[in-house]
């Protein structure tokens, strides 16, 4: 159970990396948007997903 609890504790970070990051990247490609600082859409998505996921993991809430 402790393994599961740890897994779920870091759930927001996993969600940010594995779902939000590709989602942001694919939305940018679909809408033909450019990422700042010459980043690729996936790099930009990974930054957004990681930052949001870490914040949500730390706070225990997304909003």
């Amino acid at each position, binding site marked *: 159970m402790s393994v599961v609890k740890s897994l779920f504790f870091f759930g927001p970070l996993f*969600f940010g990396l*594995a*779902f939000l990051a*590709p*989602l942001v990247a694919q*939305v940018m490609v679909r809408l033909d948007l450019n990422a700042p600082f010459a980043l690729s859409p996936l790099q930009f998505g990974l930054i957004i997903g990681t930052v949001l996921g870490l914040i*949500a993991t730390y706070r*225990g*809430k997304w*909003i």
Partner: protein
Amino acid sequence: MTSQSLRAREKAIAEQFMGGIPWLMVFWGITNTAIWIALWPLVFTGIMPLWLGFIIATINITASYLPSHDAQHYIIAPKGSKLEWFNELVGHWSLIPLTLPLRTARITHMEHHKHANDPLLDPDYSTHATGPLQALWKTIVNRQPRAEGGFNRYGQLLQQWDSPAAKSALTDAIINKILFFGILAALALSGYAIEAALLWWLPRHLALTYISFYLSWAPHHPGVEKGRYKDTRAFKSRMGNIWSSGMQYHIVHHLYPTIPLNKTPAAYRALRPILLERGCNLDHM
């Protein structure tokens, strides 16, 4: 009329609405999930536009709970009967889009019936709110990763109960959650993040908001009293009975949980004089 004879009359009326297979609920449960599954190839192959898939998926996932609710109460086929497997099949199948396991839903729902409005024992108590706006806000709060309410409360209670049934329900819930996010991640990493978001992730959040509001908060509001005739109510919904998922007559369900959802309006009308005598909150219905 004594309380006992009133109860006997109430029971005799209610029994007229019980029994038989509620085919409408069976049809609803089976086709609803089948339509939701069909959306995926239709959208992936470009036959259906994603925006339309999103709307249909939201309706599908919102509608996925109630057929399973009849199955949770063994209304489709009684426990121990030859058709119990059919009841379980409809219950499991209809909940796939919502990603809520039947055994988890059933055990927590039965406790809700036993302890409705009890702050410590009612698994659904976290949906209580002072008004509709707060109720909507609480559905969002309850879904945050380390929220104390919502499905997290189910998990806490399942660990506390520590029975074999609770352990099974908890295992189902854990597997279900891992599978759901695993599938979402697999789809996203395969290039289908937008489709996964609009056919499942976002519609599910919208559905859970609706379900929490109309199936939990509204029929129990203000939710301060306990007891057979006090822990739920009849209410007039601005959305009408169908768009509020039949919850206007939820009081009938708490009194006689084996009456199928589609028969609760008629049962309510038949039982109304007795409910008035019992002092139930009928909200001028």
